[in-house]
């Protein structure tokens, strides 16, 4: 908890000047006023890494997590503002720079991902606001020479109750800055008195985003900036042998052709010149060892590892014995494909390298890693690398990677001007880092009453964590991301055995993808639970309900979803209804989906009903929004998507080959929130995790056959 420390040297260096820097006045009054996104605001009153108040009255909240659609700027601002006692219309917000103060402990670095933001900041940001408010009250009490206990705060000012005198936070900033920061914890508000938390607030980024004025990384413009676009070796691990740029250099507007070990960048007066120049290059690659990898290679490797050695990841009781003695044995193998992120904003990064400093404008989920990479490439000290984090036009895990920042700095250090590199959509898809393909084998035993007595499960696939955060790989070699939804379930399973055969995917780099282990795990487990229920001849909801003994919150969402979806009611011919129940990211979800299959086999998801218990809710409408969007994101992948490889090259290049669910294919979605006073769970990825299992189970209900391979509309085993 960084309260009481100011660990930001850059800011501190600027503090002296802060009082003199006149920030523009924040629009006051209308709740729909545009919240300004600012950078490098300073103020004499900076009691911690999250709050700045200047004498001009400007109140800046520095938000540790980056906004990529999940509404976190609004949610985190609400946490601080609740305790600071300011209105959301009184603040401006700033994306946190790379700094230790903003590290997300669960992720080991400054990072936004894994649905951790609200869980991680639920207490710390409220404390940050409370500390600031405490100091402002003390400053006012000192000026008035009254007991702080006789003062209250409201809407950015301190009021002395008995006399009615008021002082704004701005008027108190200089004095508050002189006070020592409390070392003992400050009291937080009783949740029953929350003004903001739990009450739907409009998104702070909404006005700028609908006006088209929100600046994404791709929108950055710097004086004398030029535009670059890149072709990297389409086969992973390949290197550049030769490039003939004679034709490219003749294209009007092309300025330079830059090379690094495995990529070429054409720089032009605008993206179009750069793109035309790139197309005119004749590039010779040494494609290296991966030039023969195909999708077949990937799946074959995974299926082969269903036999042979594996690491025991989890045991409970004697699962194998229980299965051996079971009345019925159920067995299934599930296969999931490589997936691309394909956010709407293609990969981009703007960099200006000079002898003294390096400035980077980019949307990143890992600002500190990106900065450190730039320092390494340029040889500049880290404090001479300035990373300006921007709105992200869809992250989904893609921007937990920073290799494109490294690449951009490698190119930009070769030129004197600021260089904005934008990848084409084709480059974005073909050079993505992919959600791994997995194969899972499950065996379950049912007793004579149709009750699950033991579950044996092998997971085969890469360990993403081993590359992304090697120190987080469990000592036994298991990627604990794979335990999500498989070990941590909403069920009481009497005996369980889980082992893991690690097989890294040849020819691609694998990475985090929305829902991470939850998305892959829920599909497998919830498909298999359905298969068990079918084998036991028990209704799928009832089968699950019987297993939720230790998890009343799970049972509550299951019952609510079933009720709202009219589970059991008659459906038209060709329509099936499926359910999925999950406990991932600290939240419980039950999803009931209706899917229609035409006689020709085309699939249409008609309706989804979701019941959610994610603990205490910060901004309820944004929880709903995340579930709606997460489901649709998950459905695109579940129904359509599969990244394929031929001769080591990814074949999916744009939205004509990597299909995205569209408005007229999207189901009606109802989300029902359960009131809860438990600590918040994560929500940004839960809808995505639910999608494939609920859809697969609905399709199975409609046709009587199982769908064990994703994507669901692809060729089935």
């Amino acid at each position: 908890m960084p309260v009481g420390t100011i660990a930001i040297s850059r800011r501190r260096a600027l503090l002296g000047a802060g009082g003199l820097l006149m920030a523009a006045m924040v629009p006051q009054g209308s709740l729909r006023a545009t919240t300004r996104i600012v950078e490098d605001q300073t103020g004499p009153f900076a009691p911690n890494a999250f709050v700045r108040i200047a004498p001009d009255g400007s109140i800046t909240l520095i938000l540790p997590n980056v906004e990529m659609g999940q509404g976190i700027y609004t949610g985190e601002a609400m946490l601080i503002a609740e305790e600071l006692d300011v209105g959301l219309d009184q603040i401006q917000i700033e994306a946190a720079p790379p700094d230790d103060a903003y590290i997300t402990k669960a992720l080991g670095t400054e990072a936004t991902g894994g649905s951790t933001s609200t869980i991680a900041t639920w207490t710390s940001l409220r404390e940050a606001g409370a500390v600031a408010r405490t100091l402002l009250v003390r400053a006012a009490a000192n000026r008035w020479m009254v007991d702080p206990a006789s003062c209250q705060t409201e809407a950015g000012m301190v009021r002395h109750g008995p006399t009615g005198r008021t002082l704004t936070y701005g008027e108190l900033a200089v004095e508050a800055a002189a006070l020592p920061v409390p070392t003992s914890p400050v009291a937080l508000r009783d949740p029953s008195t929350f003004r903001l938390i739990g009450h739907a607030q409009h998104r702070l980024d909404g006005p700028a985003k609908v006006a088209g004025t929100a600046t994404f990384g791709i929108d950055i413009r710097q004086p004398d900036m030029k535009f670059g676009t890149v072709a990297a070796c389409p086969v992973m691990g390949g290197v550049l042998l030769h490039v003939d740029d004679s034709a490219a250099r003749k294209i009007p507007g092309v300025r330079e052709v830059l090379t690094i070990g495995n990529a070429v960048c054409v720089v032009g007066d605008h993206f179009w010149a750069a793109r035309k120049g790139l197309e005119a290059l004749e590039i010779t690659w040494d494609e290296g060892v991966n030039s023969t990898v195909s999708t077949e290679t990937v799946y074959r490797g995974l299926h082969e590892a269903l036999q042979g050695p594996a690491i025991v990841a989890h045991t409970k009781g004697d699962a194998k014995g229980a299965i051996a003695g079971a009345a019925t044995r159920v067995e299934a193998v599930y296969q999931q494909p490589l997936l691309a992120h394909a956010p709407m904003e293609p990969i981009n990064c703007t960099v200006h390298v000079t002898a003294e400093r390096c400035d980077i404008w980019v949307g990143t989920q890992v600002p500190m890693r990106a900065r450190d990479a730039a320092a390494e490439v340029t040889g500049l000290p880290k404090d001479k690398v300035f990373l300006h984090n921007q709105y992200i036009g869809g992250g989904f895990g893609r921007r937990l990677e920073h290799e494109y920042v490294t690449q951009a700095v490698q190119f930009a250090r070769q030129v004197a001007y600021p260089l904005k590199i934008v990848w084409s959509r084709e480059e974005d898809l073909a050079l993505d880092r992919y959600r791994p393909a997995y194969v899972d084998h499950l065996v379950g035993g049912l007793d004579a009453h149709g009750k699950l007595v033991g579950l044996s499960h092998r997971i085969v696939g890469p360990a993403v964590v081993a590359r992304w955060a090697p120190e987080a790989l469990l000592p036994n070699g298991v990627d604990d991301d794979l335990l999500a939804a498989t070990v941590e379930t909403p069920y009481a399973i009497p005996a369980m055995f889980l082992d893991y055969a690690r097989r890294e995917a040849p020819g691609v780099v694998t990475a985090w993808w929305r829902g991470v282990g939850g998305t892959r795990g829920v599909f497998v487990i919830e498909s298999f639970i359905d298969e068990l229920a079918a084998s036991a001849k028990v209704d799928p909801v009832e089968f699950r309900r019987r297993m939720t003994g230790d998890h009343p919150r799970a049972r509550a969402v299951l019952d609510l979803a079933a009720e709202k979806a009219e589970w059991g009611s008659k459906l038209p011919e060709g329509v099936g209804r499926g359910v999925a129940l999950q406990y991932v990211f600290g939240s419980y979800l039950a999803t009931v989906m209706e899917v229609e299959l035409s006689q020709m086999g085309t699939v249409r998801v008609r309706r989804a009903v979701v019941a959610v218990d994610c603990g205490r809710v910060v901004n309820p409408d944004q929880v709903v929004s995340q579930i709606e969007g997460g489901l649709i994101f998950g459905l695109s992948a579940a129904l359509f998507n599969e990244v394929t490889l031929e001769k080591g090259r990814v074949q999916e290049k744009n939205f004509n080959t990597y299909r995205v669910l569209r408005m007229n294919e999207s189901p009606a979605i109802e989300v029902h929130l359960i009131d809860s006073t438990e600590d918040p769970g994560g929500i940004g990825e839960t809808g995505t995790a639910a999608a494939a299992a609920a859809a697969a189970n609905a399709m199975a209900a409609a046709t009587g056959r199982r769908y064990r391979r994703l994507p669901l509309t692809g060729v089935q085993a």
Partner: protein
Amino acid sequence: MLTLQVNGAAHQVDVPDDMPLLWVLRDVLGLPGTKFGCGIGECGACTVHVDGKAVRACSLPASLVGDRPVTTIEGLAEDEVATEVTKAWLDIDVVQCGYCQPGQIMAAIALLKSNLHPSDDEIDQAMSGNICRCGTYRRIRAAIRNVAGAV
């Protein structure tokens, strides 16, 4: 040298004949509200109005625009329907990452100007060419319906 009428002003630009309007807007005229998503007319992020019709700026060579007026998300200030649309978007918090939303909004305005009371089917028909990876479709549809009710 081309002369383009953008957001009510004439701009002289010296660009190649095959350069799509999108890049002229973003990189030459400095109007970044219109977004690059796919470059092949499949996602709608670059939707602008040409002569009041919603078109994909990524697939329209600027040299084919002629003297038809171009309106981007930055040029909507005076427009009554646009005001209602953005208000409807904000009222129900449509946006998530927001990247596709200028294109969605431009498509919605063009739809509403030709059909102020579209049915859900008509909304789907007009809007399904615009991809949203965050999955805000349900809210977009609702916001368009709400505009129809408001005007």
